[in-house]
């Protein structure tokens, strides 16, 4: 009888292409999810800042999203929304949940960035009679964003590492694919290890990229 090896390279070679395909789905979910989070976060932060009447409701919404588990939000969008006639495919529901969840976190980061811009900048904008949109676009955001890039970058990495949750609604990303491979062959070692290594490598690469961007922005501001 053949002895069970702990690590089978031929099996690795066989599943790698399949996992590579799933990695594309994971990366897509990460990038779209984060793009959503970045935009949703910015909109929430600006609403909270610029429209006093919305400050409290937006704060409550952010707190609500941050205080409930992402997995439940994913389930809610995928399983409960259809009850209200909103049917989303698994990928869309998952990415939307990621975007909303991390958008709530990002909005707090944006808020800190906006609050860090000195009052005098707003007053100069008023004294020059700039409109509100121009003030945000040309004066406030260019000063508020560079300092918060590292914090946003951390959420990008965090969001990336949470994408395996999408396996719970059967999105064929890395984790779900690895589980299927494992259940077909009863060999979980290789697929799960490879997935772990992929996340490790990607996280390290992203962290390095964020540091580069951070250094670049610091140089630009220090000019």
């Amino acid at each position, binding site marked *: 009888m053949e002895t069970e090896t702990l690590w089978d390279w031929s099996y690795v070679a066989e599943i790698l292409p399949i996992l590579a395909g799933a990695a594309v789905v994971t990366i897509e979910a990460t990038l779209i999810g984060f793009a959503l989070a970045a935009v949703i976060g910015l909109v929430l932060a600006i609403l909270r800042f610029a429209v006093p009447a919305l400050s409290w409701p937006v704060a409550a919404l952010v707190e609500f999203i941050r205080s409930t588990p992402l997995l439940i939000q994913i389930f809610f969008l995928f399983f409960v929304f259809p009850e209200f006639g909103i049917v989303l495919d698994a990928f869309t529901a998952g990415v939307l949940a990621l975007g909303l969840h991390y958008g709530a976190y990002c909005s707090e980061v944006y808020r800190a960035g906006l609050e860090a811009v000195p009052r*005098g*900048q707003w*007053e*100069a904008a008023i*004294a020059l*009679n700039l*409109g509100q949109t121009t003030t945000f676009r040309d*004066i406030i955001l260019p*000063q508020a964003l560079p300092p918060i890039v590292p914090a946003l970058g951390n959420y990008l990495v965090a969001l990336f590492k949470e994408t395996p949750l999408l396996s719970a609604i059967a999105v064929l990303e890395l984790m779900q694919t690895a589980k299927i491979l494992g259940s077909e062959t009863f060999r979980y070692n290789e697929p799960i290890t490879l997935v772990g290594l992929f996340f490790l490598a990607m996280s390290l690469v992203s962290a390095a990229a964020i540091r580069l961007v951070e250094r670049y922005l610091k140089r630009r501001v220090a*000019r």
Partner: protein
Amino acid sequence: MTMPMVRFDKVTKRYGPLTVLDQLDLDVARGEKVAIIGPSGSGKTTVLRMIMTLERIDDGVIYVEGEPLTHMTRNGRLVPADARHIRQVRAKIGMVFQHFNLFPHMTALANCTEAPMTVLRLKRKEAEERAGDLLAMVGLADKRGHYPSQLSGGQQQRVAIARALAMRPKVMLFDEVTSALDPELVGEVLNVIRKLGAEHDLTMLMVTHQMGFAKEFADRVCFFYQGRIAEQGSPSELFGAPKNDRTRQFLRAVLEAG
């Protein structure tokens, strides 16, 4: 009588229980240079901030060229102004701040073209020409490509003056514009303001601690004390023969310190 450029009509400003300005009446004529002096907390900076609409007023009306700034006329009655009305009247006013408040991510030139291009919708070429002329006027023609962090305090404040002038205001407000400067840089900023007074038909209100400059430059000096104008008059009257005890006390203290 000609219409005053700026008129305060019984303007009151409170911060909580504290009354910063108490029923202030003040007319400033077209082209007049008014210096506002007084101890800290006397409400003098608040006067400028209210004209610039950086502070809301609690009572009274401010007029610019006869037109209400803080209010507008609806069906023959004065009602609080909406944002659009404020923006329209505010276009006549420019302000220079104690701490410059230049936009740090823009060059000196871009600081001076931002508002003309986005608010007045000038073409870039025209806005840059106007900004270039103004930077030359304040003696910084060679610094147009510099960022604020690359300029001295005096140079930054001169850029700030050029930036405000680029919007062609009729009233210029100077809020302690030399207070944050090293002593050796004060002169270059005051010289620019002198030049402005001579060359332009600008109405100017300045809050200042430079008594010598106020004496030489202003048409009228207002001494503020506890939210009211305790005394006002020509520089020679106010500095030469102050009638009010508070004025005398204040001037004595300032002269001893300076």
